[in-house]
């Protein structure tokens, strides 16, 4: 087992079960966002949590601005973790850009993954008229990056200092610092640029690992049309519309998220065992 990688990506392994699930956070988040969802699977699965280099409590010294200037670098982090833990046929659950990172990882090492679960994925955030609607114009995305700068995302503990002054909730500060303060501002900005200006539409067709797309209602970041686009172009994919609104159902609506993932995995395991017996549908 490669201890260096486990340290570098702040890898945490929990839970019981022969089947493993690896949870990949989306943009701007670290593994703590999976708290509710991951806990629900601990009883029956081996749970793997990690942070991308540059986020959360990863080893910032391992950051290489060239490697992480595109999603391929982040996909390599996923592959490194899988390789370090010697994972095979693991379930990959990714949020937002995390699902695209997992998809890219599956292209180079499909044997690492049995299924991909994509929560609010988008292969391309930019509109590409007339045939593709990603939801955003370039200036919108640049505006978001500016807003991150203005809110000191990644480089000052403005959000955290708020909580310092709240004597009733002393535990929150620590969590917040973990979430927001351990990322260098330049790294946060580079990740934003890599994530929001990526276009992985042409990769969808190459995916061989079966997948579940969880599409939220009223998700302005990954709108309905985008989820449907992915479903159309991603072979062997299933699309589930969620009641959950917004872009982060794993945080806002963990119960529904857990239920849908469970449902898919149990279906998939029946599918696999039937397929093993040569059954056809």
């Amino acid at each position: 087992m490669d201890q260096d990688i486990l340290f570098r990506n702040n890898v945490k392994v929990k839970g019981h079960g022969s089947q493993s699930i690896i949870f990949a956070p989306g943009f701007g988040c670290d593994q703590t966002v999976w708290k509710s969802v991951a806990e629900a699977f601990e009883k029956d699965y081996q749970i793997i949590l990690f942070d991308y280099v540059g986020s959360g409590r990863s080893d910032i010294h391992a950051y290489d601005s060239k490697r992480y200037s595109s999603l391929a670098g982040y996909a390599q982090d996923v592959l490194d973790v899988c390789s370090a833990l010697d994972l095979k046929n693991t379930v990959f659950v990714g949020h937002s850009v995390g699902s695209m990172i997992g998809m890219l990882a599956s292209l180079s090492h499909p044997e690492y993954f049995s299924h991909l679960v994509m929560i609010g994925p988008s292969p391309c955030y930019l509109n590409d008229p007339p045939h593709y609607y990603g939801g955003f114009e370039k200036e919108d995305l640049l505006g978001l990056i500016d807003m991150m700068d203005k809110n000191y995302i990644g480089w000052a503990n403005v959000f955290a200092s708020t909580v310092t002054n709240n004597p009733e909730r002393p535990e929150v500060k620590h969590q917040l610092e973990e979430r927001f303060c351990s990322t260098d501002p330049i790294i946060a900005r580079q990740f934003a640029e890599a994530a929001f200006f990526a276009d992985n539409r042409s990769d969808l067709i190459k995916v061989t690992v079966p997948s579940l797309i969880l599409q939220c209602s009223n998700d302005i970041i990954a709108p309905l049309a985008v989820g449907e686009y992915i479903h159309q172009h991603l072979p062997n994919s299933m699309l589930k519309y969620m009641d959950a609104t917004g872009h982060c159902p794993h945080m806002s609506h963990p119960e529904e998220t857990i239920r849908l993932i469970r449902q898919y995995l149990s279906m998939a395991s029946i599918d696999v065992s039937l397929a093993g017996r040569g059954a056809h549908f």
Partner: protein
Amino acid sequence: MDEQLNHAPCGFLTLSEDGVILSINQTLLKILDYTQDSLTGQHVNSILTVPARMFFQFYFFSLLKLEHQVEEMYISLASNKGEEIPVLINALSRTVKETTLFECILIPMRKRNEYENELLLAKKETEEALKAKHKVNAELETTLKKLQIQKEELLELNKQNHNYKIETKKELELARIIQETSLTDPINNEKVQMEVFYNASGELSGDIYGIYQIDQHRFGIILLDVMGHGISSALITMTLQSLFQRLISAGFAVEIVMKELDSHLHKLFRNNEEARHYSTGIFLLIDTERQIIDYVNAGHPPALWQDSDGKQYELFSTAPPLGTFEGVEFKTKTFTFSKGGRLLLYTDGVDPLASNHLAPLLKKTIALPLFKLKEEILQSLNNEKNVYHKNDDESFILIDLK
């Protein structure tokens, strides 16, 4: 809504967990340029710019969900007319009767926003400058490393050079000993008395001499000065020495010895004009019984003969230097001498300016023994050395004929 809150000097907004506007105060409606409340029931996205909508998804809702409050978050609102309004937002998540509400106050910050933009711009510029500085530093670092490597190479070369120098010095010292070993000793007996001086400008000399007793009465004395000085000239003196030693000892006539030496040089450089060296030389064959001296002077400074009365004769050049023109005839000159005379043979290093100061010196010291004369000549050489920086080989031979 409470009247005071409705007209408070800040915007007030309550949202459902899903982001639907539940209530909005007059102040905020005014800020957003809505005359009446047509916003209740709408999603908050309808009053946010597109980037703010994304930012709300990524950070606002996540923070309220996880931490139950947001403070001093910067976002931009979109007014009814599409105008962008920068605001600071504080929000609190409150659960009343199992329903969670997000209560927010919003304060426009146009001026502060401009100020912050300036700050951000300045920060970016500083970062650029820092980056440029780091780049220059890195380049300097590289240059420094290169210089360090070059310096080490130079030191290594210098060391090699030093070793080479020491090695060469040793070799030259050995060569000097070999060259000086080839020099014959002066002869001192009842017929002749001699003093010699031989000094190389460097380790090796382009001068060579030989003194031989051929039989009971005859003595051969030869002094050669190969053009140039140093190693190449010294090598040639050695080939000439081995030849004249055999010829003179065997008693060959003066012109034959000189002719052979001349031919030897021609042969030596037949196929290599560039390396051609010639040599001046004087060879005297003294017969003490018949009291005659045969000699040939090939381009050499004149030897001085001083008889017992102090009368001086110069033995001028009778032929061109050895190794210059092929087929030159070397004609022997002969003169008779009376006993008690004194001979001085020297190379041009001893009299570089041909100043003829040796003749008066010889005359002045007529009554003095030979070794005294040698001292006088050396003294004059030292005096001259202080005036001119000479760099030529020096040799002379003094002979008293008794």
